[in-house]
């Protein structure tokens, strides 16, 4: 295997939209495999770096689907700046567990959470203008922008992230073998 360091590090941005950060945790769950990876990649905007704006990147890893206006804005910024935009995990690919709210209207969801739910005190639906407006339905990323690669799973296993990065380094399509192609 060729371990030569590429001329330039692969720049990776990551974000979590309507997700639970489980996909990010899985990305970090690669044990010692993360050591050689530090030689080949560097992070841009990511919860791991706390950089707040995305600049030109090779790979954008997006966890979670779209549930509010801010999600859409961030997704478009990622699309503009990332050569390969990757939908990471079940939520990014089909909306996942958050999309189970699509069975109900937004108003019903808000009322259940903030007015009628068990244990609610000082019942009121939040209306601070700072809060991003919720979308009527939770949708997957592909409904909004072009996605280049998909990593299924909830979360995708660390091996799937490794294969993705290796594939980009080698300028080929990622090949997820049977055991790392999971929907749960």
């Amino acid at each position, binding site marked *: 295997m060729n371990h030569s360091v590429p001329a330039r590090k692969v720049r990776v941005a990551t974000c979590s939209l309507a997700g639970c950060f489980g996909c990010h945790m899985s990305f970090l769950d690669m044990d010692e495999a993360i050591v050689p990876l530090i030689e080949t990649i560097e992070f841009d905007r990511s919860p791991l770096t706390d950089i707040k704006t995305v600049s030109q990147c090779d790979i954008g890893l997006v966890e979670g689907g779209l549930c509010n206006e801010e999600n859409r804005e961030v997704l478009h910024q990622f699309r503009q700046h990332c050569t390969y935009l990757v*939908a990471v995990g079940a939520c990014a690919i089909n909306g996942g567990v958050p999309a*189970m709210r*699509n069975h109900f209207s937004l108003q019903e969801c808000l009322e259940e959470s903030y007015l009628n739910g068990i244990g609610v005190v000082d019942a009121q639906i939040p209306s601070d203008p700072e809060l991003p407006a919720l979308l009527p339905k939770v*949708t997957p990323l*592909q409904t909004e922008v072009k996605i280049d690669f998909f990593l*299924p799973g909830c979360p995708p296993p660390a091996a799937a992230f490794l294969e993705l990065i290796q594939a980009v380094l080698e300028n080929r399509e990622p090949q*997820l073998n*049977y055991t790392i192609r999971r*929907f749960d």
Partner: protein
Amino acid sequence: MFQLDGNPIAFSKGDSILQAAHKAGYYIPHLCFHPDFKAHGSCRLCVVDVKGKTVSACTQPAEDKLEVYSDTAELRQSRLRLIQLLFAEGNHYCPSCEVSGNCQLQALAYDLGMTHYHYDPFSPLRQQDGSHSQLFIDQDRCIQCDLCGRASQEQDLKSVYLLAGRGQDTHLAFRSHNGQLGSTNASMDDRAAHICPVGCILPKAGNYPDIAGERLYDKIPIHTQGNHRRDEGGQDEP
């Protein structure tokens, strides 16, 4: 004898291509076919090429000297699109599904290399039914294969389950005065309660029995072990 991807397959009079291949131990992808019941020809996953035409192997009679092709790049792509459409048409949240890992739809998706839907999700609103004392119906996952309907009619002699409506409005229904499963004579012991290839007809108790990694399709793809349900205890199907 006919040829399936170059392999000689023997058949009995009246066998479909799929039945004969199945008996000979060759796997042609399918969801709505089951060897115990009449063919339905609806899922179209068993498409094969015969004499330059694409036909469903479960309804096409086997004939002597036919050259049948199943494992071609074009057919694999058609099957992938069909599976993606089935996912997009329903609401499939595998991470929280009782049958994940033991599901034939999911297993075919894994086997065909599906990573995403390709189509935008239809996000249909479908009625759930928890009216039965022992069975729960999650229509979000129904692929309208009518296996429950055929099992109920042909084996249980009850006709509890049926498909109603047309086109995009097609849905699983129950023959009772109020349309609820709880008002039918459906039983846990019916074959129909143990035939669903996905997670639509479920027992209310005893779900999630296996840990991830030890479920039917976690390690062995469906094309090597065939279409099974966890509660079947492994039938002879290839």
